[in-house]
């Protein structure tokens, strides 16, 4: 945590309001994101209970599994989810632009440019919290190895047609989420806590309701009205019980009090006023509301199956439909506040101007989307359960480069972030006080001007350290020479001055310029290329085995 971050948190505690951590938005927001608010069943990993999903904030689609332990109902849910998600994902596939990509020529082994296409835009999946991304990964893992009746006529429990494909896409989304700075999938809590600091712990920041309460407290006219999250008909109990502390909070800090209320306030029936963002549900909801409703549903189903005549069956069917509606209403009551909160968060983020270099990172997301689209079209098998040695090493290298790039780009895009780097000695800014022209000793001398900078920062400059500045968006580097008598930093500029003996116009600072130099590179390069998986060396177990992986075997637990 940088000093700026710590300061912002302390100011948030003092003022009771979240404090900005950024002056620009560091993640790209798609014009048409898809919001996915899933709920899971307590005690059974990967058994969805329901979800709100959609790209239209006013018309989310509610999907419910009235009895999550019934695998047929679960498959029906997944089939419905595929029906919502896949058309959205596919809708970006056909709008492409020409692009170039470097590939290794299989014959010559040289790196060559290849003409290819890049999707002009990409889908963006927004989930409420980090746990939501984990749930996306789990859903993907549970689906991508399933076989449909068409793929395998002998499969004992064939999956609905598009379910395995959805599994592959969700796996791709979840894997992409591990790349620093990517925006193909985003958790709203992480987006918000990147841009605002609250006065609560980072653990508490994972509660979307509490986090939003710090940033945009309800009842200040800043929210759009949906800010007052309320459970089912509990508005009155709330105002009665909380009247006093509301008055107090005006003095102490509206956000802090609202956050506490979002986390802990319950209605007369003991239900949370602001349901957790999920996918896990509140135990009080599970025990007092959901379990009895499911029991009624199960009873009605048994009665329908046991009905002896037509009228009795009709009666029980009506009961069943009512029970199903009841569960659907319960699920909606617990997902709708989160759904509204996610959209409110999107509004807050959209109000920030996008950072200059966020678009470059979004382009990488578009490449990621295009790449997976191509793999699906080419009929490649689903992603393996476990990465092989080369794939794992490549992924780690990609992510480390992405992390370094993200840190550099955020600092360059945002003076507030740069301030944190300056305070930690990784960058320094100041006024140019002197320029002395100097040249290399070679036969064709090149310019190596010496620049003196007066700075109040305390950079950790090692002997002959390399520093960088942004010159019209391109990095220019210099070498630390030493300090002058008055403590000014003397730098020797090394590049971006053209080919001639005299530096090009504007490529060397002039006296009075205010410049920020960084000790970190602006565009970190990736590492060397690794061997192909088939050339995995003996130290790493040799080449991996052949062939695609078999689908998951059916275990007794699958048919409980």
């Amino acid at each position, binding site marked *: 945590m940088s000093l700026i971050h710590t300061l912002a948190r302390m100011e948030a505690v003092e003022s009771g309001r979240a404090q900005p951590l950024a002056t620009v938005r560091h993640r790209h927001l798609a014009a048409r994101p898809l919001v996915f608010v899933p709920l899971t069943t307590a005690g059974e990993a990967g058994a969805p209970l329901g979800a709100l999903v959609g790209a239209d904030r006013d018309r989310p689609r509610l999907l419910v599994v009235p009895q999550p332990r019934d695998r047929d109902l679960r498959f029906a849910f997944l089939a419905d989810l595929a029906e919502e998600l896949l058309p959205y994902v596919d809708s970006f596939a056909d709008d492409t632009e020409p692009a170039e990509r470097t590939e290794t020529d299989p014959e010559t*082994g040289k790196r060559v440019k290849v003409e290819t296409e890049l999707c002009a835009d990409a889908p963006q999946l927004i989930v409420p919290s980090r746990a939501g991304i984990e749930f996306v990964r789990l859903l993907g893992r549970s689906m991508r190895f399933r076989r449909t009746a068409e793929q395998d006529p002998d499969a004992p429990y064939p999956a609905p047609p598009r379910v395995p494909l959805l599994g592959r896409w969700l796996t791709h989304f979840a894997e992409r989420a591990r790349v620093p700075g990517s925006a193909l999938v985003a958790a709203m809590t992480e987006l918000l806590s990147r841009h605002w600091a609250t006065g609560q712990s980072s653990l508490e920041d994972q509660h979307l309701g509490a986090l939003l309460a710090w940033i945009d407290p309800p009842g200040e006219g800043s929210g759009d009205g949906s800010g007052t999250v309320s459970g089912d008909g509990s508005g009155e109990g709330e105002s009665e019980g909380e009247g006093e502390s509301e008055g107090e909070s005006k003095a102490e800090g509206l956000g802090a009090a609202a956050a506490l209320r979002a986390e802990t306030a319950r209605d007369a029936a003991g239900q949370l006023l602001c349901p957790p963002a999920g996918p896990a549900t509140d135990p009080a909801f599970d025990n007092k509301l959901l379990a009895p409703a499911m029991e009624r549903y199960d009873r009605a189903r048994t009665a329908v199956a046991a009905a002896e005549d037509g009228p009795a069956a009709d009666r029980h069917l009506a009961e069943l439909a009512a029970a199903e509606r009841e569960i659907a209403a319960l699920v909606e009551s617990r997902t709708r506040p989160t759904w509204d909160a996610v959209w409110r968060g999107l509004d807050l983020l959209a109000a920030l101007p996008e950072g200059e270099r966020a678009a470059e990172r979004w382009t990488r997301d578009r490449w990621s989307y295009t790449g997976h689209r191509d793999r699906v079209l080419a009929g490649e098998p689903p992603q393996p359960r476990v*990465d092989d040695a080369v794939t794992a*090493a490549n992924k780690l290298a990609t992510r*480390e480069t992405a*992390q370094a790039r993200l840190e550099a780009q955020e600092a360059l895009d945002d003076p507030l972030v740069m301030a944190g780097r300056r305070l930690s000695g990784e960058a320094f800014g100041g006024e140019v006080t002197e320029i002395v022209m100097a040249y290399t000793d070679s036969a064709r001398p090149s310019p190596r001007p010496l620049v003196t900078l007066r700075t109040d920062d305390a950079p950790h400059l090692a002997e002959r350290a390399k520093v960088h500045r942004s010159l019209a968006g391109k990095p220019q580097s210099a070498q630390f020479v030493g300090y002058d008598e008055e403590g000014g930093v003397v730098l020797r500029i090394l590049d971006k001055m053209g080919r001639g003996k005299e530096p090009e116009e504007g490529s060397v600072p002039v006296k009075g310029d205010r410049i920020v130099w960084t000790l970190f590179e602006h565009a970190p390069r990736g590492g060397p290329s690794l*061997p192909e998986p088939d050339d995995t*060396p003996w130290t790493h177990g040799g080449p991996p085995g052949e062939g695609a992986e078999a689908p998951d075997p059916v275990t007794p637990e699958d048919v409980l």
Partner: protein
Amino acid sequence: MIPDPTRTHRADASFDPSVFGPSTFDRSTFDRSPFDRSAFDPSAEAARATAAILHDTLHGGARGVVVDSPPGAGKSTLVVNAALELAAAGRPLMVVAQTNAQVDDLVLRLAEKQPDLPVGRLHSSDADPYDKALDELEHVRKSAKAADLAGLDVVISTAAKWAHVKNVEPWRHAIVDEAYQMRSDALLAVAGLFERALFVGDPGQLDPFAIVGSEQWAGLSYDPSASAVSTLLAHNPSLPQHRLPVSWRLPASAAPLVSDAFYPYTRFRSGTDHGDRSLSFGVPSDGSGPDRVLDEAAASGWGLLELPARHTPRTDPEAVRAVAEVVRRLLDRGGATVSERSPDPAPLTADRIAVGTAHRDQAAAVRAALAEPAVTGVTVDTANRLQGREYDVTVVLHPLSGRPDATAFHLETGRLCVLASRHRQACIVVCRAGVAELLDEHPSTEPVQLGVTVKFPDGWEANHAVLSHLAEHRVPYRP
């Protein structure tokens, strides 16, 4: 209960700690003379271990040989000797080191030992890619292209540079130095360049790390963020493993503690005995805390300057000033050292002193504090950068000093091990009181990953072992 290093030179890497129950150490071993010369001759033991390693490397059938080396056990000497022997046997050799400084150091050592050996220094295409001292050496060829160095007996470079070398005839042999600090993915990038290799390193120092999460591969034999040796041994469990049994750097006062705290199952001894080395001062103590801790350290090899308990920022101004004060008094009091290298007292100069910290900003703060009384020439750096270095006296700012919490970073065994094992004479630790209580309040809570070998001892245990020993050399100090 503790394996006797005189019995065998084999490091038992497949050692199962659970067999030995909880790792409680016999504290009395600290007070015992590290060895009895009649039973244990350090030179002979070290020579025997080296001979066995060279035999396996030159004549063994395995594709790899792994050598564990405790701090200051002659690892560099072994690498140089193995390189010369392989070159003499006519086997083209590539050497993989981790940093440019290590590569240049190895080239200089090779040239010193055998000036006419044709050595290639493969370097990057950056400015100032290698130590200028290499230009003086007649038989060392330097190039940024591997092809220019083809045919030379020995070619040396960093792992990062080797990873860019493609489409060449594989070398018959390689030496991988500091292999425990090399990441598995770095070995993956270079392993195709050689047929067989000698892997040398210190398992007790800092583990390699990744700047992004790598939990998804935890437990895989080829976890790219793990150390090169753990991947190598997971796939080739039958490779011969050796251990260097004698630390020539650590004095008799330090080897038992470092061995017990950080290498409890692969113990080593010091090459010198009590009385072989000494540290004394020309100027008597003025009775201040820093002077008293210097006298304690001169007498016993260890000193703990304990400041009152307090939660502080990382660059705790009082602790930083105390470190600077200790360093200044070390120089002002005219320290003199006696060791097996020189029977006459040698003056303790600034270049023989190092200050070790956990964080870079702490090192910067100490440097700034040292600049005030104009102390120059003292090395001040983080544990990561002090790895592999050696000094007469070290002053350490304890990683947990003044902290409200004990994170995995600050608890890492290797960090404390590096800081506590750089000295030939004495080590002085500057710390706030209350670290033992802090440790007890923060038991290790890292999630257990399936398939990951649990590292013993853990940072918690090692920290307690070092603290309880330091407590015997405690000098309370109120600045």
